[in-house]
């Protein structure tokens, strides 16, 4: 092997640890004789399995909070290759949702490590930032970065403390604490990952991959991902969703047709419980007549109303009249919990699904108290075209 200069070696070390960095793909050659070997070689079965786990885990839980014990136990080579394999898989996936979710989950995973190194290994942190294209400099109060880079990294963050007006800005540089620097870089990683998909693959590689992973890809396309919380807003607790909403999601997952009234109720509910816009759209992917652009348009309509508060989700009474109340239990459900009668739904105070969610401990945006007391009528669903929430 040729002798390499010190900076190059440092970059190579970082590529192995942070496989999302630009240039890291060139390391594949060090671990695997060819892309073909990685896709089919028996020696790489474990790396491929880990790659599938990464993709599936991200699709199910994009916040990346679930520990991937298999991944933690894997050796560094396997970890690196599994990342690359996951990226290959997502490059041939038929929908973009899994890729978006994987970007969030992998960025979160990387940020956990970066969070540690901001204080302990500032050199490593600055090197990763530099390779990502957002150079930072250690300073007394944390890290400094240029104004333009700060704007690019913070644009997608909703938390008020990231607004420029609250920053220590002087002479074109923003100084942030180490913790915030890691959070900003996490956002940079997320954007970098999502824009690096799909990878540019030769047609024969693409075909081989699709053939080899036929079942996995089909399952991935049909999987209706769990909605994600809007960034910095509140934690979304799907386990606290009321029976009606859980049923609606199961129907869409199975590709059953959910009536327009149900689609409307689901979107309005998910928005009020803090779900991210994109992931609300994702909830309809299983619908037999799913059309991305129509769904986006309709979800936007439902969620943007009233300065972003969105439509009021229908009351329990309305849902009952539409045959969408499942408080008696859903005999067709696979889980015992869903088959059972839900006592909370029979409480007299329980008049709407968001209230159920709140009583169980979820955070939902309700009408202002005054308006609710005045009995302001909730606007009804609007007529819709097919293919999305109505």
């Amino acid at each position, binding site marked *: 092997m040729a002798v390499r200069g010190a900076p190059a070696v440092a970059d190579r070390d970082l590529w192995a640890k942070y496989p999302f960095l630009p240039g890291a793909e060139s390391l594949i050659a060090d671990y695997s004789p060819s892309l073909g070997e990685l896709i089919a070689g028996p020696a790489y079965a474990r790396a491929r399995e880990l790659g599938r786990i990464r993709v599936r885990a991200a699709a199910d839980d994009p916040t990346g909070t679930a520990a991937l014990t298999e991944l933690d136990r894997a050796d560094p080579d396997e970890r690196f290759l599994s990342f690359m394999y996951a990226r290959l898989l997502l490059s041939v996936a038929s929908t973009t949702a899994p890729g978006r979710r994987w970007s969030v989950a992998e960025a979160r995973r990387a940020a956990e490590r970066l969070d540690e190194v901001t204080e302990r290994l500032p050199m490593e942190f600055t090197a990763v930032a530099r390779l990502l294209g957002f150079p930072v400099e250690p300073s007394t109060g944390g890290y400094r970065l240029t104004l333009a880079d700060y*704007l690019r990294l913070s644009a997608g963050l909703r938390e008020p*403390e990231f607004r420029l007006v609250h920053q220590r800005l002087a002479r074109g540089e923003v100084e942030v604490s180490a913790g915030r620097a890691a959070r900003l870089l996490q956002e940079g990683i997320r954007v970098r990952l999502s824009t690096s998909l799909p990878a540019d693959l030769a047609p024969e590689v693409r075909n081989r991959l699709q053939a080899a992973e036929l079942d996995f890809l089909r399952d991935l396309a049909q999987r209706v991902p769990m909605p994600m919380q809007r960034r910095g807003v509140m*934690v979304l607790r799907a386990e606290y969703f009321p029976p009606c909403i859980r049923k609606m999601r199961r129907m869409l997952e199975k590709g059953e047709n959910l009536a327009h009234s149900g689609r409307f109720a689901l979107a309005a509910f998910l928005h009020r419980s803090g779900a991210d816009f994109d992931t609300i759209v994702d909830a309809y992917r299983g619908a037999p007549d799913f059309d991305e652009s129509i769904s986006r348009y309709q979800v936007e309509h439902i969620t943007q109303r009233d300065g972003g508060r969105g439509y009021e989700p229908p009351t329990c009474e309305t849902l009952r009249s539409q045959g969408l109340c499942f408080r008696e239990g859903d005999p067709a459900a696979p889980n015992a919990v869903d088959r059972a009668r839900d006592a909370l739904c029979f409480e007299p105070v329980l008049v709407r699904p968001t209230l159920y969610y709140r009583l169980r401990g979820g955070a939902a945006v309700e009408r202002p108290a005054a308006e609710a007391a005045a009995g302001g009528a909730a606007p009804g669903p609007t007529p819709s075209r097919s293919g999305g929430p109505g």
Partner: protein
Amino acid sequence: MGKTVALDPPTLEWAHRQFQTYYRSTHVEPPARFTRREFAAFPFSVQTLMRRHASFRSAEDLRGFLEEEAPRHVYYSSAYYRNPSDATMVAKEWLGADLIFDLDADHLRQAEGKTYAEQLTLARSRFRDLVDDFLLGDFGFDPRDVTLVFSGGRGFHAHVHADAVLTLSSGERRELVEYILGVGVDPREGVREMREGERGPGLSMGPRSELAGTEAGRPTGVRQRPFQRLAPPDAPGWPGRITRAFFRILTRWEDGGAELAAREMQEAGAHEAVAREWADRLVRQGKGRRIREGLTLDVAAGDFPPELLAQILEQARIDVQGETDAPVTTDIHRLIRLPGSLHGGTGFRVLPLAHEELDRFEPFRDAPVPFAGTSPVDVRLLTDVSYPTFPEATRGKEGETLNLPRATALFLTLRGEARPAAAGAAPTSSRP
């Protein structure tokens, strides 16, 4: 964008000839990357339509167009495109845009009730603050990357063309605007750094997210009594700016006396007794000096009047919102007046200004076209006029005929305040 007064055809024709004279005798310097920009022009003649989606391949082409057409208003896009002359945004293919700040006297709160000349003086001073404090100060732009322009109307434009800003999105530009406007800054809390995970300041000047203030937005620390300590005046960001603004107010009051302080606080809405008490404390009892020296507000019992705090913020922020419905800075497809062209509502030059010229710039002296070697022009006044700020103070009563320098005549004509004798008798329809 100044108002365009409707003029009768002979008058328009006369004004058009003056514009032609100007464009034939001047070399308009095309903006950077002009071959990638879209140009738009409003003609004098009512028969000709506005020309949009035009692009020019060379400086000569642009000058040729200006000499030929001598349009009433000329704009170019702050954005540059792969195909600037295509009619749709998609086909144009956006590549980037200068960062534009528009400071218009029309939108300055303090400008109400002032004459045009007074408004311009106010706008110039606020523009100076915008450039020095924000653009070259906090934002750190290199002066070579910032072009300052008198708009020819009521305001000033700053064009930033640093590479780092060209591809900023509209949302990213909004952050800069909100920084200048101080959106979300509460002087009561401005002195404290926001802690990790803490929610935004309580008093917001802009729309708040309907969902803010849950989970991530809960305050984490125990709140100290806010606004007891001031940040050092050279502290970065808004904390230092609030201190500086506060000091400027204190200095003004100390120089002007307690009466002035009490009056200003009352004008800002403070109750008379409260205003008097605080004016006395700050000025006569020397508490202002203690505040400045100790960077503390623990100088008297009782809370500062909120009106005083609001005044500090008003002093520190700058209104760059421009036209409220179409904020200039965040619009990345904006058309903006071409420097070197003439403003069709005043006949003034849209004049690029060097940074050091800003303080000395007098619109009524420097912006009119010199029209070298031309004779004065007779105009008949259509209304009473008073423009003492023109080098030859211009005053007169309706119906009077004045012999004025050509540029002054052009100014009054375009504003609909006079009619050049050369345009013949006024048509019947426009006679009073």
